[in-house]
């Protein structure tokens, strides 16, 4: 006689009339497959933990975003934000979909060039660009977005030295009605810094001011703020045109669109409440079209969206190491996924689902990682089914920033697997090895031997 499927006994106190700090949703719907691949097979083949990225989702997301903007505005160009996820295969997908490269460091710039991106289609942002970086960018005719006056002077000197006319834009910060206002990057609009920088560029005549750039914040939940920003950049561009008879070729609205993740402290899940690409496109396009640009001289609209294009395509698979009880009787579950590889758990309540079926019984659970550090908390409070040791889980919406901000802390970073459109998995970044780590270290001879 076959035995009944075992589930550990559980008793849960019922509390009515009290707000539930563990949230309203119960994630007991299992996610057993990702793009046709069984989670258990992926873990068996590539180990646990494991990053999995869906090419299908990336392509459908960028196409959705493009459609949202291109149906509202005639001239749109996306540029892939390398810092969000610069694994070569991922950049390759975005470039195949027509995105330029948006980089914020010399390392990222070199990465884009090494991948074969035309220098003219690289946007070079960020406050730190060395003379060597700028020289490279000027020679490649890349679009250099100036962050501060020191950079402006350096580029001007290099232009004279190299006898080139670099294509530049200035980054503009401004009050768009949201808090906190990002004013550490670029030149301020309201106090006239931006116009001062433009005056310097135009009067010197050494640089070709082709664009205006802003990046008003991160994980923005208010599309209207983009409308304000687009109006202010349009106003600035029209002032330049009137004052210097000089056409600004593009307006770059930067990134910052929220993905479908849920910010810590939010009551409702981000998938239900965060704005869509259509919401952002409507706000930006309306502002630009309603500005005083002549119909046939609308500037190119550049978007550097990162997070919202990749977050949903990324999954982190892991396994349960142990279940424990806290001193107060709360369920604690330890996963083999730590904050070292899931950096975004510091600001998101990531959705966690089991990878195998369970009954509808759940426990209020605190999910910890395996690091021997008190800060290693993946979810402070969530409602999970009755997971057992070695059960597998899927953490959702991890595609952005985790594979660039991850830390090699006490453990080796895992494989990253891409599932292609034909549902075939490929390793796109190998798991680190001890040899990888040791190969970068040098030990002085007098420290090589010891006796214990």
């Amino acid at each position, binding site marked *: 006689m076959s035995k009944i499927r075992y589930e550990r*006994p559980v008793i849960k106190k*019922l509390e009515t009339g009290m707000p539930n700090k563990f949230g309203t949703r119960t994630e007991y719907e299992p996610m057993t497959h990702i793009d046709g691949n069984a989670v258990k097979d992926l873990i068996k083949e590539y180990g646990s933990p494991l990053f999995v990225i869906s090419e299908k989702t990336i392509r459908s997301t960028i196409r959705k975003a493009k459609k949202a903007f291109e149906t509202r505005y005639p001239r749109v160009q996306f540029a892939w934000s390398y810092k969000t996820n610069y694994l070569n295969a991922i950049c390759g997908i975005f470039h195949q979909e027509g995105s330029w490269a948006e980089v914020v460091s010399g390392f990222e710039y070199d990465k884009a060039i090494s991948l074969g991106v035309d220098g003219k289609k690289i946007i070079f942002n960020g406050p730190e660009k060395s003379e060597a970086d700028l020289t490279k960018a000027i020679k490649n005719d890349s679009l250099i977005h100036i962050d501060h006056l020191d950079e402006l002077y350096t580029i001007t000197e290099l232009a004279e030295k190299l006898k080139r006319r670099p294509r530049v834009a200035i980054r503009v910060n401004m009050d768009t009605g949201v808090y906190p206002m990002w004013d550490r990057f670029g030149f301020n609009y309201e106090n006239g810094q931006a116009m001062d920088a433009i005056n310097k560029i135009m009067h010197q005549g050494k640089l070709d001011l082709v664009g205006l750039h802003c990046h008003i914040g991160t994980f923005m939940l208010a599309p209207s703020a983009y409308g304000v920003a687009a109006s202010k950049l349009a106003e600035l561009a029209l002032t330049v045109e009137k004052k210097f008879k000089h056409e600004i070729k593009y307006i770059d609205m930067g990134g910052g669109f929220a993905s479908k993740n849920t910010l810590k402290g939010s009551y409702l899940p981000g998938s239900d409440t965060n704005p869509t690409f259509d919401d952002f496109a409507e706000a930006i396009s309306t502002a630009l079209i309603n500005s005083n640009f002549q119909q046939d001289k609308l500037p190119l609209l550049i978007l550097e969206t990162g997070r919202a294009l990749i977050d949903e395509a990324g999954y982190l698979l892991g396994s349960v190491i142990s279940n424990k*009880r806290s001193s107060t009787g709360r369920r604690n579950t330890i996963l083999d996924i730590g904050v070292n590889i899931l950096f975004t758990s510091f600001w998101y309540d990531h959705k966690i689902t089991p990878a195998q079926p369970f009954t509808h019984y759940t426990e209020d659970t605190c999910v910890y990682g395996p690091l021997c550090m008190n800060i290693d908390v993946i979810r402070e409070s969530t409602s999970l089914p009755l997971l057992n040791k070695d059960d597998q889980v899927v953490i959702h919406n991890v595609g952005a920033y985790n594979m660039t901000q991850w830390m090699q802390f006490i453990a080796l970073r895992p494989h990253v697997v891409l599932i292609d459109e034909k549902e075939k998995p490929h390793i796109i970044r190998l798991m680190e090895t001890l040899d990888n780590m040791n190969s970068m270290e040098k030990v002085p001879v007098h420290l090589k031997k010891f006796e214990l």
Partner: protein
Amino acid sequence: MKLKKNVAISEAGLLFNPVTGESFSVNPIGIEILNLLREEKSGSQIHDIILEKYSTDKTTLEKDYNDFIGILSHNNLLESDEKAKA
């Protein structure tokens, strides 16, 4: 180990403690264990019954059973040893 006498258990998985007014939900295997405790079965007898019926191993069951008893105790649903002996 004995469940408090006045604790009411429904087949649907609800448990009510009239002394404190607290209600609990319990999963089917939990209800089964509670009923066995009510029948004053010993820990090893309960283990044998569960192992016979469910697809699990001794170590897992022992770990989960102890955890379950711990939570019953934490919620004052078990008679104290002195009372149980009396």
